[in-house]
């Protein structure tokens, strides 16, 4: 009797777990399917080549044009700018934490960085608008109210915890015998960090950057607030731009009629965004797997 009861619990417990997995898988599949079908509808109205290679994005007002490049360029500027901001600082933080920091400093800074990761993104957007942008405007008077630089810096701050934490893990994953080998050859701490630790962790630093890029590409709220909503094909970081995500926000908020071509643009852009981040994530995780520290002895 007892045995039967135990078996029932066992089976229903497993069933419950399967239900959880099933719900996740179904949701993911549905998202991909909806994204795919709606994007397909869009591409039956607008040629995919016009979408991918067109340099003008004006889908909401006549005469319409559907060249996504200004949005891709906007996202690209945010990504490049944020990585340029966050990678040196993140590497610096990680190097200090893993190689030099005494335990009490480490145990203070790590949680502080994690708090940074927990701040709502809209707060970051507000912070960019009211703090970073005024500073930029006082340094570079030609800066527009909404500008790519401010968005890039704030996204850089947002991905900083991720980069420093992943790099710190990468450094601490290296065996200490590797550092000892360097020191025993008469190297200074600086030489050990730059010529042993950094190169040995290179692959995992690369993986951290790719995962951070994918996060920066998907970032929405802060860039919408900071960088604006003008799909300009520009390389000037002080001009207003629009990212792919910010465009989706614009359409979702507006009174765009459901079913029209302007409504469908949303799915085309989202599909492109999904494809890019998906590829980035796959490369990033592969790199992370492949570069786990391994040594034969």
């Amino acid at each position, binding site marked *: 009797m007892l045995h039967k009861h135990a078996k029932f619990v066992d089976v229903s417990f497993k069933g419950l777990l399967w239900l959880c997995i099933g719900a996740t898988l179904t949701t993911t599949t549905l998202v991909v399917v909806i994204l795919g079908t709606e994007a397909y509808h869009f591409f039956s109205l607008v040629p995919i080549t016009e979408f991918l290679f067109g340099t003008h994005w004006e889908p909401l007002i006549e005469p319409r044009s559907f060249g996504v490049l200004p949005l891709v360029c906007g996202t690209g500027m945010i990504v490049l700018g944020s990585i340029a901001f966050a990678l040196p600082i993140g590497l610096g933080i990680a190097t200090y934490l893993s190689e030099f920091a005494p335990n009490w400093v480490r145990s203070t800074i790590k949680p502080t960085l994690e708090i940074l990761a927990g701040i709502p993104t809209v707060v970051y957007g507000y912070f960019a608008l009211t703090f970073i942008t005024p500073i930029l405007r006082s340094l570079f008077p030609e800066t527009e109210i909404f500008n790519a630089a401010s968005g890039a810096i704030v996204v850089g701050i947002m991905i900083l915890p991720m980069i420093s934490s992943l790099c710190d893990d990468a450094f601490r994953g290296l*065996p200490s015998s*590797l550092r*000892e*080998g360097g*020191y*025993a*050859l*008469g190297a200074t701490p600086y030489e050990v960090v730059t010529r042993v630790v950094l190169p040995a962790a290179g692959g995992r630093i690369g993986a951290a950057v790719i995962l951070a890029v994918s996060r920066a590409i998907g970032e929405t709220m802060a860039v919408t607030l900071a960088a604006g909503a003008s799909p300009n094909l520009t390389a000037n970081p002080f001009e207003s731009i629009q990212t792919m995500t910010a465009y989706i926000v614009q359409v979702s908020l507006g009174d765009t009629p459901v079913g029209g071509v302007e409504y469908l643009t949303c799915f085309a852009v989202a599909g492109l965004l999904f494809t890019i981040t998906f590829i980035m994530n796959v490369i990033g995780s592969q790199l992370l797997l492949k570069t786990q520290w*391994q040594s*034969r002895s």
Partner: protein
Amino acid sequence: MNQEAPILKTEGLKISYGSTPAINGISIEIRPNRVTAVIGPSGCGKSTLLRTFNRMNDFIPNIKTEGQVWFRGQNMFHPKVDPVNIRKHVGMVFQRPNPFPKSIYKNITWGPTIHSYAGNLDELVEKSLKRAALWDEVKSRLHDSAFDLSGGQQQRLCIARTIAMNPDVILMDEPCSALDPKATARIEDLIGELRSRYTIVIVTHNMQQAARISDETLFLYEGNLIESGKTKALFTNPTKQQTEDYITGRFG
């Protein structure tokens, strides 16, 4: 310098980790161009003693070193002495082979390059690998990863890397503990060949190994130097009961 003057010397050396004593006042002299073995049971302080000679203990927090240590007559713990400089002259080979994740060639040139070696690197690599008895096995694949080598080859690469710095002393911390008997025998042969050029101090828990390869032996027990002297004499005719008990395998 007199051939018989000690190259390394300690006087009243005391080391403790926090409040745990590791070495309780050891005074020894290590002569140049000999192989000196440091033996003793686990935890007797032999690795701690070895790591004093290139100041690798500096990296351990809360470690306290008292007493005097001289390298070539120079006080190693004088505030003006830079440990980085000492390590250029006192090399070290570790328990487990720890080559850099780079090519065989770059493993050898790593140390000399950071010290702006002025000579020909190709020649240095060949000379170092030859002295470490590894040249013939790797000469056709110098630019392969060091991780492609077997454990024993990796350890000889680490010895070659140390030799490339042209040190006076090579410290070896149980260099064969991760190796099989065949690779161990090769390293032991190599140590015999290196004796003429370098002063070697080797920590080993393998008494047969100490007896086979060393000229002098120090026997440590619980942080104290129990007995030291010519290896042959110490192994055949120990003066202390503890030494005899240890080398005959009664404890340890």
